[in-house]
């Protein structure tokens, strides 16, 4: 479980995040949604420690992330996995070497065991035969899956995904979403996903935080999201004609 308390973040004079409170539970896919530029990436970077918040508290299962010593933080990092918007695979290494990299850096097992673990992770994302390819030889969806395999190679407790299906077609997006959700349940991971994709929201939004202009605008589940009366949220959710149509059909049913 990750708890965010009263988080603020400013860049020079620009206040990007204002008083964010949130709780992200283990074994659930927690979504941070909002328009482009609303501050989702900044929020996630603050949570994982790539940015230092201006104020606030961050608790990883009760452990205060911002007050930790460097060493404690380093150890906690081994429990984190992250999937970046651009996949961020190391382009000088093969797919298999990418997945083995965290193991080689941090685990004390033998080369053979690491190899087996990396293959297991690749197999988990259905890429067991792409190990020898270079990252630029595979499709965007496959790159994202390799990124997932790399992120889970050290059996993380916390998984962070920044727009995991940006740039992917709806079907591939769904595969990635389901994969992340399955892995979350399988290993009881605390997963946080940034997205602006309503398909993902409806498919895997077990717990949703809506960020609007740097503040928390709404909080709930994908079942509640259609019925909310929060105006900015409705503007966001029903921005597409498809969802407008869905709402019309739904309200007609009630009549």
């Amino acid at each position, binding site marked *: 479980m990750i708890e965010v308390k009263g988080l603020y973040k400013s860049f020079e004079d620009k206040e990007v995040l204002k008083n964010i409170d949130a709780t992200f539970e283990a074994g659930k896919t927690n979504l941070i949604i909002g328009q482009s530029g609303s501050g989702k990436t900044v929020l996630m970077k603050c949570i*994982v420690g790539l940015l230092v918040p201006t104020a606030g508290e961050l608790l990883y299962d009760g452990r205060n992330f911002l007050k930790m010593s460097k060493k404690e933080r380093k150890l906690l*990092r*081994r429990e*984190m996995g992250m999937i970046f918007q651009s996949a*961020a695979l190391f382009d000088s290494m093969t797919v298999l070497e990418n997945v083995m990299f965290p193991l080689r*850096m941090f685990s004390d097992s033998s080369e053979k065991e690491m190899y087996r673990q990396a293959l297991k992770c690749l197999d988990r994302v259905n890429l067991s035969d792409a190990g020898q390819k270079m990252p630029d030889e595979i499709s965007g969806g496959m790159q994202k899956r390799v990124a997932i395999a790399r992120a889970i190679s050290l059996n993380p407790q916390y998984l*962070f995904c920044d727009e995991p299906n940006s740039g992917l077609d709806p079907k591939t997006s769904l595969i990635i979403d389901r994969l992340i959700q399955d892995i979350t349940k399988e290993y009881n991971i605390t997963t946080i996903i940034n997205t602006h994709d309503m398909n993902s929201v409806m498919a895997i939004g077990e717990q949703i935080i809506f960020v609007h202009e740097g503040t928390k605008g709404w909080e709930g589940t994908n079942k509640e999201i259609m019925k909310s009366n929060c105006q900015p949220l409705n503007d966001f959710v029903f921005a597409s004609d498809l969802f407008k149509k869905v709402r019309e059909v739904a309200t007609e049913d009630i009549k």
Partner: protein
Amino acid sequence: MHYNIHNNMIKALDSFGKYLLLMYRVFARPERFRRYFVQYVREMFQLGFKSIAIVLLISVFIGAVITIQIKLNIESPWMPKWTVGYVTREILILEFSSSIMCLILAGKVGSNIASELGTMRVTQQIDALEIMGVNSASYLILPKIAALITVIPALVIFSFSAGVFGAYCVSWFTDTIVTSHLQLGMQYWFQEWYVWCAIIKSVFFAFIISSVSAYFGYTVEGGSIAVGKASTNAVVSCSALILFADLILTKILMG
């Protein structure tokens, strides 16, 4: 005008401070020595071995041209016959192979380092390392610095040998100078200390090239345009610093 100079000085000091902070992170104690060693060997190949061809080409030609120029412009009947060989050798060892060669390498290797690290920054590969708990500055930059400090002195000696070879080619294949006269000059009043001067200077230049271009690449912000700019800035700064260091080192080493 004054305001501008003042501003630029503050900017330069600011950059220098950031450079020092980066170097402080780079020289942290490596945790996985073996991984660093693998990177070190890779960088020696990537940055050093792949520069052999250009060093060979330029040095042979410059060696030959210097010989011809000295012969045509300086030698006269009342000068001793060792003049051409002696002057050629001294120019090669004292300035060309040690300093000018490093300027050329600053262009080739410096832009390579800056654009590689810059690309890793903008594609979030550096963030991915940080998330895993890897000291990305040390892991990416230390092997490069170590590799260049090993390889560049060797390239300087190689460049000197190639330059001498170029000079001999002139005596073998043209009638500009007699081989025996050239040889007499090449062996005249040889001082071992000058070779050491060249090696010492090149170690400093190697450190300048690797660390300064790494600084420009590592601190890129933005996209591909920023990477290109960083690469240009790296080469310009490295060249200026090498010339400046050359002046000071020559004064110190040669009295």
